[in-house]
């Protein structure tokens, strides 16, 4: 038993829904109580889908439990097949149905349906949403893919995009452009917009592009083993990763490594002098393993940030993220406990967070700007405009995303210069933000800036902030205050000082000047 307030991932059957909802001509019959239908709104509201997810919930009630939930399942299954005329169905149990052990798979098999019936094992009490999506897609591929000849032209499948994914819709478009520029045809994209017939054709491709390991890796591995299709290991998010990806595809296909970088703007945007202020910004990165790994590289190598911590909520990615953390010389936080993530961020006091919608809230509370780089996301993270993450256009989009929450170049200096100006002060937030800026004075917890700072001060070990120094610290703009405070305390501790005076503050500043 574990007490949870907010979760990064839903249960595994929600992952199965992400696959089913992404596909066409496929229906999901889910043995579940009525309340589980809430999951429809994730798709219709958050992602603004204009169709109901193709899911029939059996919605059994207490009074059915003693009698015939299995009969209810069969009747629902039959109704769904008649009404929606899918080309294949997937069947599974939600957490409650798992406990009553009706065996939807066995039941569906006895019904004599003429379409393929794909049973799912979705262990609700040990696994989560990403597992559910990965497993479901794998089972669909395993059941439907047919052995066949390769296409004449070199072609690939794109694996992993689902409904409710982070920017999946646009990533697929950008990925297709990238592949077209290299002369690679796209055989099938799946699950997004694929039909069961498309899935049957997947073995015709020469190789697979594994766009999202979280949701496509099991299928990719199975196709490699059974249909001899190699799959790409690099996820092309960021400039370096995109170049590596192109090289990887060239190696797999033997095609020339043609790089058309005419659309790529990130490098110059990053080199141009206005971006100098980005140098060494301390960022904390949290999300799914794939996006975190990509963003760690972008942050350090392409934006010139300092990565002060990384982590992921999906345990499946714990190993690669730990290895990466070692390479970056930081601690890896592998946790789906929102409070633990918050504590870590508070302790590290980064100047910016790259995270999920959860970290956006943490950022709001702590007064730290946050850019969203990974699922889970909310309705505002499904923009109307084209905004991919992968490929060269993705890199451009990411540059804008990471810069947006920050106070820009000269503005930062002006804030420092006029830090006592009652109108032009840091708590007003970046001037290009209007009402949505992080406002530490009006944060969700309702505490004033004053309250936030005070309790922080004496807590750290045995170092005490003297009045003058504390006052001076408050004058430092909020986006660098965390760093200043930490640096000063570290400096004081190293020097064996018990108190921090105004002088200590400036000595530390000089010590850390770069």
């Amino acid at each position, binding site marked *: *038993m*574990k*007490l*949870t*307030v*907010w*979760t990064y*991932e*839903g*249960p595994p*059957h*929600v992952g199965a829904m992400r696959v089913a909802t992404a596909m066409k001509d496929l229906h999901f019959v889910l043995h579940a*109580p*009525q*309340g*589980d*239908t*809430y*999951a*429809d*709104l*994730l798709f*219709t*509201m958050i992602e*603004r*889908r*204009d*169709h*109901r*997810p193709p899911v*029939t*919930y*059996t*919605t*059994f*009630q*207490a009074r*059915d*439990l003693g009698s015939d939930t299995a009969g209810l399942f069969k009747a*629902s299954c039959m*109704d769904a097949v008649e*009404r929606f005329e899918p080309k294949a169905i997937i069947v599974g149990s*939600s*957490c*409650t149905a798992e*406990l*009553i052990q009706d065996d939807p798979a066995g039941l569906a098999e006895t019904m004599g349906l003429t379409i393929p019936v794909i049973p799912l094992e979705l*262990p*609700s*009490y*040990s696994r*989560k949403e990403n597992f559910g999506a990965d497993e479901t897609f794998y089972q669909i591929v395993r059941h439907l893919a047919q052995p066949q000849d390769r296409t004449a032209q070199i072609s690939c499948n794109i694996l992993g995009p689902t409904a409710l994914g982070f920017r999946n819709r646009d990533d697929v478009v950008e990925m297709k452009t990238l592949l077209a520029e290299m002369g690679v045809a796209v055989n099938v994209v799946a699950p997004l917009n694929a039909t069961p017939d498309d899935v049957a054709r997947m073995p015709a491709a020469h190789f697979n592009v594994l766009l999202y390991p979280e949701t496509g890796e099991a299928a990719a591995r199975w196709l490699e083993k059974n249909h001899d299709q190699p799959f790409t290991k690099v996820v092309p998010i960021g400039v370096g990763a995109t170049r590596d990806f192109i090289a990887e595809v060239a190696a797999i296909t033997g095609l020339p490594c043609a790089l058309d970088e005419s659309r790529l703007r990130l490098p110059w945007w990053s080199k141009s002098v206005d971006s100098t202020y980005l140098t060494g910004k301390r960022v904390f990165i949290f999300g799914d393993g794939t996006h975190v790994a990509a963003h760690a590289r972008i942050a350090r190598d392409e934006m010139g940030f300092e990565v002060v911590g990384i982590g992921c909520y999906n345990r499946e990615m714990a190993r690669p993220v730990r290895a990466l953390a070692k390479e970056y010389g930081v601690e890896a936080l592998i946790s789906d406990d929102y409070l633990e993530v918050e504590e870590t961020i508070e302790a590290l006091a980064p100047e910016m967070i790259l995270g999920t*919608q959860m970290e956006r*809230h943490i950022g*709001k*509370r702590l007064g730290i700007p946050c850019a969203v780089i990974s699922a889970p996301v909310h309705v505002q993270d499904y923009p109307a405009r084209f905004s991919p993450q992968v490929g060269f256009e993705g890199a451009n989009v990411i540059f804008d995303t990471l810069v947006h929450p920050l106070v820009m170049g000269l503005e930062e200096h002006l804030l420092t210069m006029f830090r006592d100006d009652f109108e032009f002060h840091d708590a007003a937030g970046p001037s290009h933000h209007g009402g949505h800026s992080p406002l530490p004075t009006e944060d*969700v*917890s*309702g505490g004033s800036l004053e309250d936030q700072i005070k309790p922080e001060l004496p807590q750290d070990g045995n170092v005490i902030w003297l009045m003058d120094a504390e006052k001076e610290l408050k004058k430092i703009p909020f986006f660098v205050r965390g760093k200043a405070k930490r640096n000063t305390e570290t400096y004081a501790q190293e020097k064996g000082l018990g108190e921090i005076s105004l002088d200590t503050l400036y000595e530390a500043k000089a010590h850390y000047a770069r």
Partner: protein
Amino acid sequence: MNDLSPPQGGGCRNAPVLKERGQREVFCGLTGIIWLHRKMQDAFFLVVGSRTCAHLLQSAAGVMIFAEPRFGTAILEETDLAGMADAHKELDREVARLLARRPDIRQLFLVGSCPSEVIKIDLARAAERLTQIHAPHVRVLNYSGSGIETTFTQGEDACLASMVPVLKDTQARELMLVGALPDVVEDQMVSLLSAMGVDNIRLLPARRIDDTTAIGPNTVFALTQPFLGDTHAELVRRGARHIAAPFPLGEEGTTAWLAAIAQEFGVSKETFDTVTAAPRARARKAIAQASEALQGKSIFFFPDSQLEIPLARFLTRECGMTALEVGSPYIHDAVHGPDLDLLAAGPQISEGQDVDLQLDRARAARADLTVCGLGLANPLEAEGLTTKWAIELVFTPIHFYEQAGDLASLFARPIRRKAALRLEAAE
């Protein structure tokens, strides 16, 4: 208008009800926690359930409540499913940890879910045990919000019903007002009644445990929400008497509801009129303005909160709409009867749901406004229908005179929006 007489051709109380039992597209009772935990400021709601339950609570709110919410889910894991004894020990541990961290919590609700009920974790026993451990500082109660037992607002019903048996006894003649309302609305309600000389008012739920209400044979009670059937039964069991009335939605409903109480307490007609005249006039004016877009329009209700029948009554009698179908998850005659009496015969009244069949009917009816859950709204909009999300109706102050205009606006807005947008390509 507003003579509160039943409609000419008779009301809907004896109209045939279409009862359906098929796939339902509704939330489970856990959802009520989202407003209940705001209402009871010293209460914590601990769901004993699965990751699905936690995900529902997170998703149904639409926005996340980040000033550390007073609810959480004790997620059952594989180890808990193995043996019962474990689950109780684990629960004790989690509760102890929680209460240590939140000394402001005075009442704890253990909320049952489908998984906890299927594996038969006895939360009543757990609540008794935990009350003993944590008394007197914390009172622990339990109720079911599970999807196999409760539909959406029935979660509040189950919660309030669980509070009735522990109310103290009294012989006093008191008025108990039952149902969670936003504080501002509650204050309006109480001040209207006080102005009529009706004092000795008790509220269920009270804002804090210290205001605890008592009950006895001289208690009369009025419901402010139409989904409180079980609470109604529990109160009657304790000897209290129900004042049946239409629900205080809209000017007419509010007047009828207040009038029923006034009559019970022998308030004179003059006093009643003096107190209500001004807010009634305001409400009428506000409704007249807000309902312009609604006049002559048709409406179709999917079942959701059990507010459907009183709302249909308001929209047809005060806003000039025509109801085509009024679906409610459950219909209790003792609770919904007075509103059904006033709702003119004509609409199909339906109870329960078979969502695909009902969607077929909604598509055939093509009402000017379709009231439905969040899962159906965008798909129906994409088919050209205009929709109103039902959940907004339980998250927004809509009761009593001062909110009557807002209530009409909630329904008018989608229709006004549709008229305002010019997005079709030129022919």
